[in-house]
């Protein structure tokens, strides 16, 4: 294929456009780019486990943010009682929330899989309410956050001074993405999960234990989001309602990227993080960041619908 031919390819055009945007931002609003990427890394990291459940099990987990919230409290309790750093608490959180995820699936989700989608939504919404009320009863609405010196470490590059710790969210999102892709495409269980996600009836016909696959994927996703809660706590206060906005943002990212498109979720998260940071960098537009988030979402969904119509036409 000639160079011109390659340039005509849609993905190449998108890549070049993204590169041009990055260079422009680097020259014009470098902090918006750097801090937006860090912010977007967090969004993508939180959204990936939700995408796993939606893509394979086929339900929208409206309690997603609440599981993250509980993971943050779990890490805080370990910090207070045992002096354990939240990043170290990721490991016990994985174990604890794997158990919680399995129990949640066996006791509730499994029984609603054949129910209408509205019932499934109501079920996970109920779980979300239970979790936040439980947290409120135990810990009240008082926010908690460990004081950790490393979270405000900064670095200087050229004339720019910016925080370095928050890149951990970007690294974690990329690591989780690579891990999930390897798991889904290279392992027997992962391939079985993909098959179940695409066609549960067909998967069952070829001998895949669908229920067991759902259980394992749900357990894995909850274990991951619980551990992410521990990471979240390093830079954010925890309180009972902290998770709900991240449920919404995660769902929006998945809607934007498309169900099953884990790579798209990471790109979408980064793009939205940068868009928010860019808008916030202008005086008087700080409150518009959320509007931008959802405006970009609407624009992408409408754009994709238009593109799909053109392709089918």
């Amino acid at each position: 294929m000639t160079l011109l031919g390659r340039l005509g390819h849609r993905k190449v055009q998108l890549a070049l456009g993204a590169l041009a945007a990055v260079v422009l931002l680097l020259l014009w609003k470098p902090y918006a780019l750097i801090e937006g990427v860090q912010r977007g890394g967090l969004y993508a990291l939180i959204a990936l486990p939700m995408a796993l459940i939606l893509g394979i099990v086929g339900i929208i987990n409206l309690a997603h943010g609440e599981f993250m919230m509980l993971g943050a409290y779990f890490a805080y309790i370990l910090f207070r009682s045992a002096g354990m750093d939240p990043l170290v608490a990721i490991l016990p959180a994985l174990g604890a929330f794997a158990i919680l995820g399995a129990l949640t699936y066996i006791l509730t989700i499994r029984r609603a899989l054949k129910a209408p989608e509205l019932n499934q939504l109501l079920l996970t919404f109920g779980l979300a309410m239970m979790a936040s009320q439980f947290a409120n009863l135990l810990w009240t609405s008082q926010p908690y956050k460990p004081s950790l010196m490393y979270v405000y470490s900064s670095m200087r590059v050229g004339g720019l001074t910016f925080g370095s710790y928050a890149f951990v969210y970007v690294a974690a999102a990329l690591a989780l993405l690579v891990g999930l892709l390897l798991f889904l495409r290279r392992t027997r269980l992962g391939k079985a999960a993909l098959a179940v996600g695409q066609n549960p009836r067909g998967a069952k016909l070829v001998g895949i234990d669908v229920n067991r696959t759902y259980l394992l994927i749900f357990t894995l996703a909850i274990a991951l989001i619980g551990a992410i809660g521990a990471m979240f706590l390093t830079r954010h206060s925890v309180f009972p309602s902290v998770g709900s906005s991240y449920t919404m943002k995660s769902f929006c990212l998945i809607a934007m990227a498309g169900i099953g498109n884990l790579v798209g979720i990471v790109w979408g998260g980064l793009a939205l993080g940068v868009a928010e940071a860019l808008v916030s960098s202008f005086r008087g537009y700080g409150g518009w960041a959320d509007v931008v988030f959802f405006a970009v979402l609407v624009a992408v969904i409408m754009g994709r619908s238009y593109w799909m119509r053109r392709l089918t036409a």
Partner: protein
Amino acid sequence: MFAGSKIARGTLLAVVAVFGLVFLAGAQEGAIKLGAVLPLGDITGAQAAKAMELAVDEINAAGGVLGRELEVIVIDSEFDAAKGAAAIDRLATVDEVDIFIGGMSSGVHLGQIPTLKKYEKVTVWIGAASSLVEEAVQGLDWYFHIHPWDYLQGQSYVDGWAAIEEEYPLITIDKAFWAYEDGAFGTGSYQGSLIAHEDWENIGDSFTSAALGGGDYRSILRLAQEEDPDIFIWVGYGSDALPIMEQAIEIGFTPPLFVGSPPGWPADFGESPLAEGVIAYGMWAPSISNVSAVSQAFWDGYIAMYDEEPATYFAPLGYTNVYVVVEAIERAGTLEKEALIDALEATEYESPVGETLTFTASNLIDHQGFQGQKILQWQDGEQQVIWPFEFATALPRYPFTGR
């Protein structure tokens, strides 16, 4: 036989009369009931309720009120206006309380006021700073308000900073940057502050609080950094407190004065080294115990009862609430409404908050208690009072260094 029946009837009548008198006497001499509505799921409401119980225990141990036991019935408003109003209904009709006390959120209280107007019971309220509430309770002679209104708070900060600048010439404030959360609380506070601090050059911008889904403050901190203000004031919630400090240090933003104005601070904020030198606005600090015997007694009593330290000024406010009401009942000698109103108007109560509480007129109501707040500073992990000077527990540390 006829004579025996008469004796039996007479005896029966006497027994019934005695029981009736005993019942009536018991009904008249039952507990005096205070009905409180508080957000028990929040530290402010939870600690205010505990402080009220402490006061009730102390009063009952000393013989009660007018020879009767005192009881406080607390219902959780859950920060919900409808539930707060329903709580007033229940306290009035089911629990048949004598006086309403408590309160925290202005939004909830606005929902309760129509219900309070139904019953017109004497109400002594420790919450609600919004002047919208003041408008709603205008003209109600049975309503007494303890917490300073928002404009009174703002004026006290103006007076405080002017006094601090005069007392300590090294501290000068010409330019202020306001970072306010983009909800009603932050925006309203900012608008009010612009009017109050007209002697400053004020620049402001909004951010989304962590309480409402935000949590990244670096954009607004950089905007503030560009302005190089003499004082940086953030108006948000407790969940913003430590993250905003961390992110300020991360980008190298250390204005000479770093002020936080949340309704409450996280319990562990003082443990962070970043708290050092941060200025806070509040009605009370634990260190006031060092300059006030009443505050010390409250502090000791609260810890002895609950094995925890009071962490919010709603604790001494809750304690004040009960004692102010009880002392008024003692002065009046009765629960009769007009006598009680007169007695409350004569209140002079030395509060553990520090000031002596009296009720005077504010802009729109006749019975306003506290007139302002204090300027505090975190020093070595503790909140110290730096103004008003009569309650000062430490000298201000200036400038803020972020370490």
